[in-house]
């Protein structure tokens, strides 16, 4: 497999001995959308800055597009949207794209075409002549994405790309990111919004205290967090005590009753772990044999957010139950 980004034991220690990254080894396949997750202060932004030589690595090696990151050539055809960016307030939207496009080595009609194209993609064509200082946070963020995509870069780093963007525009930006990966760009996203990473990214890594805790596809990460078992919820009528004892022995747990009708015949929820989906039918059979009404059966898929808390929260005394309850 070809990698757009590869790091081997990358580390960064700031003055005062603060370790921001410790032996980070990552592989980001070309053309993929990669999400980097981690709590505040995990070292996510530092990692991106090290890859772009904004911050110098203290140890280890890394390549960008197959080129050593210490060389300026590694940053050719690379786009970047930093978190909390500040564009020169004397520039217009097209001025921002033109300036950073020129710094990226574009010029002439090709650059102008790119400016038209990228402003169109982020929906700012009509605002191109307006100075960015007049833009809302969301609009400035869209200009940031546009400048990062100028020249159809091979690798795009987006640090909190939807930060401060309203839900409609956020959906639009997701579309832009999807199109970028569809065109062959490798997109590397730092985000706190785990749901966003889950819908956008093929690969994810979890960084905590400068160390990669887990990396792989989203499915692999979920499996790592949940183990091999599957959680299933049942909504049933009243269960005879003898049957409940058997189910409880297999790990069934009743859920607290939600607001609604109570009493002996009231529907109730319980959940339990099964090895795989084939185990669900015998449970339903046993319920039906005891004349228990079965209203619903739903496998409870672990979400990325749950997996994140499961993997990160362990060291912080947190545990997530299936369904996202900590």
């Amino acid at each position, binding site marked *: 497999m070809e990698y757009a980004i590869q790091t081997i034991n990358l580390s960064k220690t*700031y003055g005062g001995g603060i370790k921001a990254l410790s032996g980070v080894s990552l592989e980001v396949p070309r053309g993929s959308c990669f999400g980097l997750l981690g709590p505040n202060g995990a070292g996510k932004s530092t990692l991106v*800055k090290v890859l772009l030589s904004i911050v110098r690595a203290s140890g280890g090696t890394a390549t960008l597009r197959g080129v050593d990151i210490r060389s300026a050539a*590694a940053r050719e055809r690379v786009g*970047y949207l930093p978190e909390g960016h*500040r564009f020169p307030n004397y520039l217009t939207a097209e*001025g921002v794209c033109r300036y950073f496009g020129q*710094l990226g080595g574009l010029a002439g009609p090709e650059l102008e075409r790119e400016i038209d194209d990228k402003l169109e993609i982020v929906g700012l064509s009509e605002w191109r002549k307006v100075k960015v200082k007049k833009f809302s946070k969301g609009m400035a963020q869209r200009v940031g994405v546009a400048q990062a995509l100028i020249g159809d870069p091979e690798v795009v780093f987006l640090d909190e790309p939807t930060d401060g963007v309203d839900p409609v525009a956020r959906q639009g930006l997701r579309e832009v990111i999807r199109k970028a990966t569809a065109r062959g760009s490798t997109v590397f996203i730092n985000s706190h919004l785990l749901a966003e990473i889950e819908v956008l990214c093929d690969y994810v890594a979890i960084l905590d205290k400068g160390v990669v805790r887990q990396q792989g596809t989203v499915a692999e990460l979920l499996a790592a967090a949940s183990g091999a078992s599957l959680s299933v919820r049942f909504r049933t009528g009243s269960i005879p005590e003898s049957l409940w004892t058997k189910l409880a022995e297999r790990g069934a747990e009743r859920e607290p009753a939600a607001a609604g009708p109570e009493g002996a015949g009231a529907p109730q929820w319980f959940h339990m772990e099964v090895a795989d989906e084939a185990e669900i039918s015998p449970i339903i059979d046993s319920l039906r044999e005891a004349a228990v009404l079965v209203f619903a059966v739903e496998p409870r898929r672990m979400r990325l957010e749950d997996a994140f808390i499961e993997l990160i929260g362990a060291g912080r005394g947190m545990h997530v139950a299936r369904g996202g309850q900590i």
Partner: protein
Amino acid sequence: MGALIAIIADTWRQSRQQVVFLIMLGLLALTALTTVALVHTVEVTTDDGAVVEKVVVYGIDDAGELLSEGWAGLYSTSILAEYVNEGESVDPFSEEGQELQQKLFDFAALEAQTEPKRRAVETLIWAVGFVVYVVSMMLFIAACAGYFPALLEAGAVDIVLAKPLERWKIFLGKYLGGMALFTAALLGTYALLFFGLGLRTGVWHPAIFMVMPLQVLSAGTLFALIALLGVIRGSTALAMIVGYGYYLIVDKIMQFLLFANFGGEGWQSLQKVLRAAIPNFVRVRDTALMAVINAPATDWQPVMVMFAWLLLSLGLGYWIFHRRDF
């Protein structure tokens, strides 16, 4: 090369937004235009009946005489400086010093009579050049103090550093951008004076442009010091305060300590050593302005010291910029 030009052009755009830079342009233009408007020529009949053309200034009686005497004063001072530079220290308050000064002044006064109109224009240009020099330097400090702190602002510097550029190009581009602007402003002002005075008096004096190289050197050194401070501390206000403090106070004290004729032999030896180590803006300004009157002596030592400080400050500023994490 394209990226370097883009950074220079961006500094140009940045400056156009600065009120202080616009004030500088306005004041320089006003100075030049006022001078041109006030100067004209008149024909006068001498005692021996000859008709000669003299340069006069509206509102100043006997301007012709004043300009002629002014030229003699400047020229004789320049010759006197040659004595001092060659180690023949002359105490201006001693009888010997007074006598020498008078002799040199009389010689220069005779020289002034050979081409009275040209000498008058030269003196005028020296005086206006002095004003242009002081005004431009004073306002340039305020204008350039923000260039590097603005570049290095968090969120602004990241995108620039993420481009495929070596850091020296970014640093040099910003520096040259500021200097290009200053040089253009000076060139415009001196061109206005050159053509305006040429048309009004018939004296075309290209030596007016000879002030520029040393003035650009002075501004460049001051900007390099301010840039160094900007890179270290990232504060526009601090860079401005230190810039003004050095230019207006420290430099004047140094001028006195390094060049005033006082103290014993030991002190004077120390003065000589310090002159070779500490830059002096007043001295370089005087040397630059003397070029207008085609003075026979040019004191190169302060120029060389200033150039060394320019390289030192710029080199140190770049070294810090190159090594820093952002």
